[in-house]
């Protein structure tokens, strides 16, 4: 339980290893964002049949670095209408949780440095995945306060939109995460990843649906297309960060990309077995890291593909999808997996292989129970709608 680094008290070596891990994680996140921005621009250019950045460095790979440096030399303008203290606080509230959330992601196996064993993971606290949910809740403040404190119309609109969207999908996301927790019986991200083996991922074991819910909810949570209503240029100019300039603006940009990387990493950890992969005898400590980054890369590229392919949703469609589809489905699937698990332990006679929730059982049980559940739900709504119509007719066509 927990990182073995801290099992025998704290001495200088432990402190140094901790600091080294902190620095490495920062380097990874910052470099990751720089490369991801470049990759997003380059990949989307390919998808749209154009060239994209190609001036700074080979294939324009230094483009985001150049943009980053430029931003430091921009004048910092805060509108006089703004609530200055909150206006300055908000970028911290967006960027710090974005950094912190990555702390719980397991990147590789156990390694030993200078006689100390440690996980390739910044921290493995027992609450693990709850920490991630907490950080994504704090990020909502960063977005909301930015728009509110700007004292400007479009940022305010953008921020109420953003916070309504983010909290709506957070409900669905935490239910999907709870399903993965249910399969493992632990909140620790490492325990969740160890529970899955090379190919026996939670993705199959839980019957794909929680993964789908998580992906949709996470996309909305980080305001990536097709859920980027928060910064719909045609309606809201730049969204909640319209009034920000210079470094503060760049911090929001940074936070957004870091969040995308983090939710992808969480998807890899929860549903795709994290760093687990085929065992290779040559350099055994290296390969888990390679598997992890391959999976992560697939996810972040998937987000770019989504952006190039799907048009933006309308706000009512967004809310309908969140509250009327994802949340009922997530609640239902949570109970289904719980029932399968309890039945599995108690040897109920429905032929589940002991010790494994396999995809076929899950899908079969889901199909049966789903028809009953959603059929019942639909019937209830139709009956209700009919009654409203009757009452409206009785009241002479005036709707209450």
């Amino acid at each position: 339980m927990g990182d073995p680094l801290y099992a025998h008290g704290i001495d200088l070596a432990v402190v140094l290893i901790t600091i080294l891990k902190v620095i490495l994680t920062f380097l990874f996140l910052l470099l990751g964002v720089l490369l991801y921005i470049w990759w997003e621009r380059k990949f989307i250019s390919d998808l749209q049949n154009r060239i994209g950045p190609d001036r700074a460095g080979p294939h324009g790979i230094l483009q985001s670095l150049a943009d980053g440096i430029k931003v430091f030399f921009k004048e910092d303008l805060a509108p006089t209408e703004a609530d200055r203290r909150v206006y300055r606080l908000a970028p911290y509230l967006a960027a710090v949780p974005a950094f912190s959330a990555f702390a719980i992601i397991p990147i590789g196996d156990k390694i030993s440095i200078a006689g100390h064993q440690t996980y390739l993971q910044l921290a493995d606290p027992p609450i693990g995945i709850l920490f991630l949910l907490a950080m994504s809740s704090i990020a909502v403040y960063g977005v909301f306060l930015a728009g509110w404190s700007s004292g400007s119309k479009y940022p305010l609109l953008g921020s109420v939109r953003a916070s309504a969207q983010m909290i709506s999908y957070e409900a669905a996301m935490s239910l999907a995460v709870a399903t993965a927790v249910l399969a493992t019986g632990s909140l620790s991200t490492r325990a969740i990843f160890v529970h899955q083996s090379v190919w026996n991922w939670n993705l199959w074991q839980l019957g794909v649906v929680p993964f789908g819910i998580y992906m949709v909810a996470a996309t909305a949570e980080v305001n990536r297309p097709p859920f980027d209503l928060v910064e719909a240029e045609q309606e809201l100019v730049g969204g909640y960060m319209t009034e920000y300039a210079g470094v503060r603006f760049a911090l929001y940009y940074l936070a957004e990309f870091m969040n995308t990387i983090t939710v992808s990493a969480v998807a890899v950890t929860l549903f795709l077995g994290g760093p687990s992969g085929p065992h290779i005898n040559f350099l055994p400590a290296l390969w888990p890291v390679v598997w992890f980054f391959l999976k992560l890369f697939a996810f972040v590229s998937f987000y770019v593909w989504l952006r190039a392919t799907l048009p933006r949703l309308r706000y009512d469609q967004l809310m309908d999808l969140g509250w009327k589809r994802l949340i009922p489905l997530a609640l239902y699937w949570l109970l289904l997996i719980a029932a399968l698990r309890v039945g599995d332990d108690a040897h109920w006679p429905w032929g589940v292989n002991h010790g494994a929730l396999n995809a076929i059982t899950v899908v079969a049980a889901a199909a049966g129970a789903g028809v009953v559940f959603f059929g019942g739900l639909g019937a209830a709504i139709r009956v209700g709608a009919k009654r409203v119509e009757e009452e409206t007719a009785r009241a002479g066509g005036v709707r209450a």
Partner: protein
Amino acid sequence: MSEFLRQYLTVAIFGGAAILMVALMLGVGRLVRPTRPQGQKYLNYECGVDPVGSGWSQSHVRYYIFALLFVMFDVEAVFIFPWAVRLDAMAVFGLVEMTIFIVVLALGLLYAWRKGVLRWI
């Protein structure tokens, strides 16, 4: 410090480092950027046209209603996570208990749905 708390130590250090990092970026920006104040620069940008009236406009009450609904589901998550961790200990009892809880909650959602709260106009 117990081993339990030491696991959080790294998280705390990392959080502190993140705050420092952001402060550092803003600090470096302050050192190198130019400052040439001019009245018009400090107007709200909004959409590029000079702003009319106050920026503190009212927004639709519907956002607030969704926030209330979210609180309901967030409190529910508070119960679901401990339950999910300890399900094998509670077995059938836990399953029945949670089913009742979720059905009650789903009825609440259904009620809100029928009342038209979830309809976004």
